[in-house]
């Protein structure tokens, strides 16, 4: 039921406030739902976490203000340092997925019969769930029937229980994580390689560039956007390494494969946890560490935008 459209007989009236400011307001109106969600689910919870980290609270009863006690305890907590150390190992070693993905992508970037099948096979580990990857690797490492130890047995090496050994366990889980992550980087580089300018390669050929030199000076600079994305997703992947740890070792043996995210979950939500304040304090520390990375990331984005 709309009013019939009548011809406008009045002289052009004074513009309303809405008409005057429409241009400026419209973007904000469109952004409003997004901003609302972002505030509700990201920004406000950050401040809430910081707030909770100053309390001792079991999630049920009264929360008591303890000031910086949680942080002081954290500074004296061996488990915290183990987790921190493991986080660093994860961040460093996970970066291997980038050159690994590049190698596989270069290898697969050829026109051979059935190459699509090979490509999809290489991409397969990224498609299956992390939980399945964790289980597969847990069995692979199994000291009794695991493939790895059977293979080691051929060389007369005693079985190694990777997941029960405090020195090897983190590396074992990272190796499991690298499998899907390499596939992810590979797909990024494959799309990147499609966009490489054939004329530049032609020109480089004429200048007698070959092999590694061609890769380093001609191909890689053109793959910079792909590399950038690969670094971003790999860092994120390393920091959200929670699921593999939970499936493969549950943080063990005796907590030596924990990372900060897992330790936070254990303290705040697991069966024996429910120390919300302490968990929040760990979350705040993790957030600060990520801030370093996020700041760098934002700065680079900003610089790139301006450079354009």
């Amino acid at each position, binding site marked *: 039921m709309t009013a019939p459209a009548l011809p406008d007989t009045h002289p052009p009236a004074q513009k309303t406030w809405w008409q005057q400011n429409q241009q400026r307001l419209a973007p904000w109106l469109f952004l409003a739902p997004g901003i609302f969600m972002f505030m509700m689910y990201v920004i406000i919870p950050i401040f809430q976490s910081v707030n909770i980290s100053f309390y001792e609270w*079991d*999630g*049920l*009863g009264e929360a008591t203000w303890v000031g910086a006690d949680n942080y002081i*305890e954290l500074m004296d907590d*061996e488990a915290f340092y183990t987790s921190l150390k493991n986080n660093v190992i994860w961040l460093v070693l996970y970066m291997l997925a980038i050159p690994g993905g590049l190698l596989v992508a270069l290898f697969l970037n050829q026109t051979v019969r059935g190459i699509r099948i090979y490509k999809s096979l290489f991409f397969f580990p990224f498609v299956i769930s992390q939980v399945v990857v964790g289980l597969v690797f847990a069995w692979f*490492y*199994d*000291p009794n029937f695991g493939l790895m130890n059977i293979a080691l047995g051929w060389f007369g090496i005693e079985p190694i*229980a990777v*997941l*029960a050994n405090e020195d090897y366990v983190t590396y074992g889980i990272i190796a499991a994580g690298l499998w899907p992550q390499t596939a992810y980087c590979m797909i990024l580089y494959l799309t990147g390689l499609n966009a490489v300018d054939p004329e530049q390669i032609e020109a480089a050929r004429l200048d007698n560039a070959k092999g590694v030199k061609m890769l380093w000076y001609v191909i890689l600079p053109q793959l910079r956007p792909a590399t950038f994305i690969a670094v971003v997703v790999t860092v994120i992947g390393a920091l959200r390494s929670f699921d593999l740890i939970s499936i493969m*070792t*549950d943080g*063990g*043996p*005796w*907590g030596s494969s924990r990372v900060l995210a897992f330790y936070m979950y*254990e303290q705040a*939500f697991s*069966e*024996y*946890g*429910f*120390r919300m304040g302490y968990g929040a304090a760990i979350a705040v520390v993790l957030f600060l560490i990520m801030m370093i990375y996020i700041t760098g990331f934002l700065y680079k984005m900003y610089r790139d935008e301006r450079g354009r």
Partner: protein
Amino acid sequence: MLYTSLKLTAALAASTLISSAALAGELVINTDTSDPAPKAAFEALIKGFEAENPDVTVTWNLFDHEGYKTSIRNFLTADSPDLANWYAGNRMLPYVNAGLFEPVDDVWEENGLKDSLASSVGSMTIDGKIWGVPYTYYQWGVYYRKDIFEEQGIAVPTNWDEFKAAGAKLSEAGITPITIGTKYLWTAGGVFDYINLRTNGYDFHMALGKGEVSWTDDRVKATMNNWKELIDAGFFLENHAAYSWQEALAPMVQGDAAMYVMGNFAVAPLREAGLSDDQLGFFQFPVINPDVPLAEEAPTDTIHIPANAKNKEDAKKFLAYLARPEVQTEINKTLGQLPINKNSEVGEDKFLQAGYEMLSTTDGGIAQFFDRDYPAEMAKAGMEGFQEFMVKPERMDAILERLEKVRARVYK
């Protein structure tokens, strides 16, 4: 158009009224009994209660076992059922302290439960009040391969020296004496419980759980040293930190390991894996210090009324029904566990009979389990320490000092 929608609203309002009237006789039960046997037991239990109380409709929400541990915290505060299952001892303490459970002393008084459920009064009482009704428990002890023991000419060990000798003999024959999987930690808690109960006794074990004794105390060290004797003699399955308790069943089934310090729930999977009752046996954990009265481990499962329950009257009726001897007989027959009510009958099963005999003659006290008797944080740190100790026994002092640090924090 407007008229019909008005009529619809009226109809809706009426139906809401009706359903809220029906709500008076509705009983909501939340449980985590999702495994086949417990599920069947609860189905029968609820059916029996409904048959006796036709005016009460039971709504039963079944939760996954692991998820329940988190959901209970949410539903007790937000959307409370009328009944929920949980565990006795320290495990219910946080909810009692937060005022989320309702004391049910009146149910106990009216039905004479203090007499018929006498054995569990202690583990159900906090601050002088009783907080629920227990319906089942099961024994812990040593499950062993009878055929392997016979083959090796080993008699059932009753004291520490015999136990160690039996292990040595098994090791010689290339058989791991005790299988265990400590990936999820709690199995190591069971071993600690028994060695500590046998070395220092029930009262000390409980005092340690209450934080009254230091973890660096000489008596704790005595327990750990006894444990170390077994570790040094290669008693436990190699690489146990990589296995769950179910995965650790395999060596026992295959005959590569001979014993398992476990709860009675291990019998079902062992039988399913093909071990017959002639191959599988049970014995009480051997005596270490002959001056210490024998205490046993028998975790009790319970049902509670949340403080925010809407239909407490029928909930209490249900608890009274649950406490009856014939009901407990029936439910435990399906569960394959032991009834709490002393007038109930125990199933024919030989392990149940053995457990019943052991627990009814226990004079040293009945412990719940490490992670039920000890506060959650202490339990977590403790079991992690035990796992480390079982792999690196030389770190004993460092581990105990770490636990002492946790104790200082937990029991403020």
